[in-house]
């Protein structure tokens, strides 16, 4: 019994949730003595009204698409991969090693290789918690979150002791060869004569992210493997009944998940900084959890949610630049969005469902009025 149309389920409910989240964010801004209307104005102006703003918004969006997809794929198998952050970090290592390996002649060769390197490293980093879950029953939430810390320490060690060029004071790798530089939007759109600011780091990885959305959709809803992953996620006992191996699905889903998180590095490491630095991921792995939650683990939802969080990220940066509102407040706003779209989803969903139900009942009543009972006399 579907109580409400699909568009209400996937669009209306999240939209109302976001509005409520913004309302409470406004109250918080009021409470610290600033003007919420002005704040939202600054956010929109700084992120959506110029190619400069859009450039940064889409750059962040690209990161969040990769990590959001990563969390989604694992979640389709009902595994909560909290380790996107660490997997993206190690993915960055893979990308850096590939980019520094040879003097790449052209980015068209460097990109697929780096993508492969990043995905492979991310997948391998996820493989250990996956194996511990599949073979030993160690909970994936615990292990993946611990692997974030390990990833940070490993990267720290490697950057300081191995990858840092001789004489440098900066714990970062050497800059990548020019052939491994990805074209930015200003160059791509320049071909078509569309002017675009050359400052923001948004690059060709954005299109790779969209391609990844499509491929994840294809995998989950058009292949046997996706069918098995979803079946396993809904009912493990059912999966065993159908002859689906829990070990195999746990491993594969986590490898794909880790690979997607690792693939993010082509955007931030290869596309933006052109070298591997400390904390290159900047929390995108954790934002991915919120993106997947809000996007209902569907690639289209992930894309839209990633766009929203890209806007929040860029808008938040602008806030701290142009107003007295501290940058930390954007974390509050993000938290409120996550709280209302993820954790308190039913708070909005139930009343909306009831409203649709009442409307349906009224419509049913109209054409065929209930036969009146004979008045008892």
């Amino acid at each position, binding site marked *: *019994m*579907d*109580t409400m149309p699909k568009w209400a389920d996937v669009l209306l409910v999240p939209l109302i949730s976001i509005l409520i989240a913004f309302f409470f964010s406004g109250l918080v801004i009021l409470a610290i003595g600033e003007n919420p209307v002005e704040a939202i104005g600054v956010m929109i102006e700084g992120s959506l009204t110029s190619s400069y703003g859009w450039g940064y918004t889409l750059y962040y969006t690209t990161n969040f698409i990769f990590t959001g997809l990563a969390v989604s794929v694992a979640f389709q198998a009902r595994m909560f991969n909290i380790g996107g952050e660490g997997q993206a970090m190690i993915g960055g290592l893979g990308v850096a090693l590939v980019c520094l390996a040879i003097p790449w002649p052209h980015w068209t060769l460097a990109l697929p290789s780096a993508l492969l390197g990043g995905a492979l490293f991310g997948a391998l980093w996820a493989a250990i918690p996956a194996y511990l879950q599949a073979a030993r029953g160690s909970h994936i939430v615990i292990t993946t979150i611990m692997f974030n810390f390990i990833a940070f320490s490993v990267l720290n060690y490697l950057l300081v002791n191995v990858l840092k060029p001789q004489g440098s004071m900066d714990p970062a790798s050497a800059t990548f060869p020019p052939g491994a530089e990805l074209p930015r939007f200003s160059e791509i759109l320049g071909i078509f004569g569309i002017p675009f600011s050359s400052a923001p780091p948004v690059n060709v990885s954005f299109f790779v992210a969209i391609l990844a959305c499509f491929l994840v959709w*294809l995998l989950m809803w*058009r*292949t*046997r493997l996706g*069918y*098995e992953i*979803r*079946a396993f996620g*809904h*009912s493990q*006992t*059912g999966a*065993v*009944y*159908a*002859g*689906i*191996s829990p070990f195999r699905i746990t491993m594969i889903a986590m490898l794909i998940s880790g690979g997607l998180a690792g693939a993010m590095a082509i955007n931030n490491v290869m596309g933006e900084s052109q070298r591997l630095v400390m904390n290159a991921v900047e929390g995108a792995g954790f934002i991915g959890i919120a993106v997947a939650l809000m996007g209902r683990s569907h690639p289209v939802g992930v894309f839209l949610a990633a766009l929203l969080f890209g806007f929040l990220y860029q808008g938040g940066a602008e806030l701290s630049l142009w107003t007295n509102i501290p940058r930390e407040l954007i974390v509050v706003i993000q938290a409120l969005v996550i709280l209302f779209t993820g954790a308190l989803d039913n708070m909005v969903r139930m009343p909306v*469902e009831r409203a649709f*139900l009442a409307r349906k009942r009224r419509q049913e009543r109209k054409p065929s009025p209930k036969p009146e009972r004979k008045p008892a006399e």
Partner: protein
Amino acid sequence: MALDTETSGRPSPAAPDASAPAIELRGISKSFGPVQANKDISIRVMPGTIHGIIGENGAGKSTLMSILYGFYKADAGEIFINGQKTEIPDSQAAIRAGIGMVFQHFKLVENFTVLENVILGVEDGPMLRPSLSKARSALKSLAKEYELNVDPDAVIQDLSVGHQQRVEILKALYRQAQILILDEPTGVLTPAEADQLFRILARLKEEGKTIVLITHKLREIMDTTDTVSVMRRGEMTATVTTAGTSPEELAELMVGRKVLLEIDKKPAKPGKRVLEVENLRVVDSAGVERLKGVSLHVAAGEILGIAGVAGNGQTELLEVLGGIQKGTGTVRINGEEIDLSGKYSDARTRRHRGIAHVPEDRQREGLIMDFFAWENSCFGYHDDPAYNRGLLTDNDAIRRDAEKKIEKYDIRPTNCWQTAKNFSGGNQQKLVVAREMERDPELLLVGQPTRGVDIGAIEFIHRQIIALRDAGRAVLLVSVELDEIMSMSDRIAVMFDGRIMGERLPSETDERELGLLMAGVDSVPDGVSEAEAIERNLDRAARGS
């Protein structure tokens, strides 16, 4: 209404109006979201009677009783206990009003003793000793009064299911219950234990207690109740005196049309042996041996029925044959041995060997409840080339196939874009049965094919199983419904405590004999009554496992 003296769960015991009904419900309605579980239900149950409530699964029986016991709050309607309007906001109020409930799934603390369970929640003070000794003497007198014998110091997990149920009844009586509600009480009992239960109920009735018996078994209603109410789709369709009705009439009232209670089937023509099982053993993850050396065989064109009380190894037998659990021993299909514990012991390989499986629990195993009907229609067979086109699944082919099955098996709604959870129990089961039978398997494993299935669908599913048999396929049927086993099987094997206790032909046995085997009693020793022999055996088994 203003004149009614409203009390909170405490009808004044000073004025028990003998002519007033013990329970009266007026216009009770309850809905869960879009589902209306109870629609304007009114019943009256007179004191000192046994009142049956019969209806198919999902008819709203349990919801109604949960309202009476304070688990749910009715959207509309009133409750009168002994003629007094009573509000029952929670189970404490129900207990105060003298209502006791015995649930289908017992609410006992497994590692507490009988006494500890009885006083749980009604201790007299912070120290347990006085309460325990008070309960001990109370239990002694209750045991004498109602033949409710249970060792007060036994730990619950060492007791047989029948005895655990007695503890539940004792709990209610210890709380001064005048009204006792039993929800599907015989589902887990052997026939002999069920008879014992009904003797206890008759005794309670003699003492003036009022009993409400919820069940879907027509025979129990006919044998034990004074009056009976029939529920269908949340509505009370009739209340009649039991003496003035017949099973056929009740069945018709339950379903809303005439039903055939007898199964029409030709004698079996068994061919070569399809399934041969020798010394099959299964040890569960806790190290307990669930199958203790089972040997059996099923021939082509015959149905072997496995009778037994739930939890005696039937589930494990189906699961090990279906590739869900691992085991040891020898199993052959058409003379070829199959892998029971190695790399090829999974369900996928079993399907390739021609073993189809309608599992006992369709909601946890047989279906993915959040998948569409068409996605479920190939579940387990999704690697079949017919459903795939290279790397991708051929969803159009799967949907075409699903639509065919929906039409052939009369599954409603007919929309293959509905998720499995939106189908009724019967239609869910038909979905599973259609999927497994349409593969034309060598061997069909069927567990509880009609559990939670409406009578109309039961008829249909039984006919399909028999048709498969007549087409020369082997069927292994597991059911806890003895009627179903007796009417469907060509041979009956009885399981008890992980073993096959014996095999009988349906034409040469009766319920009493099967009931004894189900309790693990081969032969009754001299000088011991049948009931005692059963009781000893069940308790021994409970302690053993």
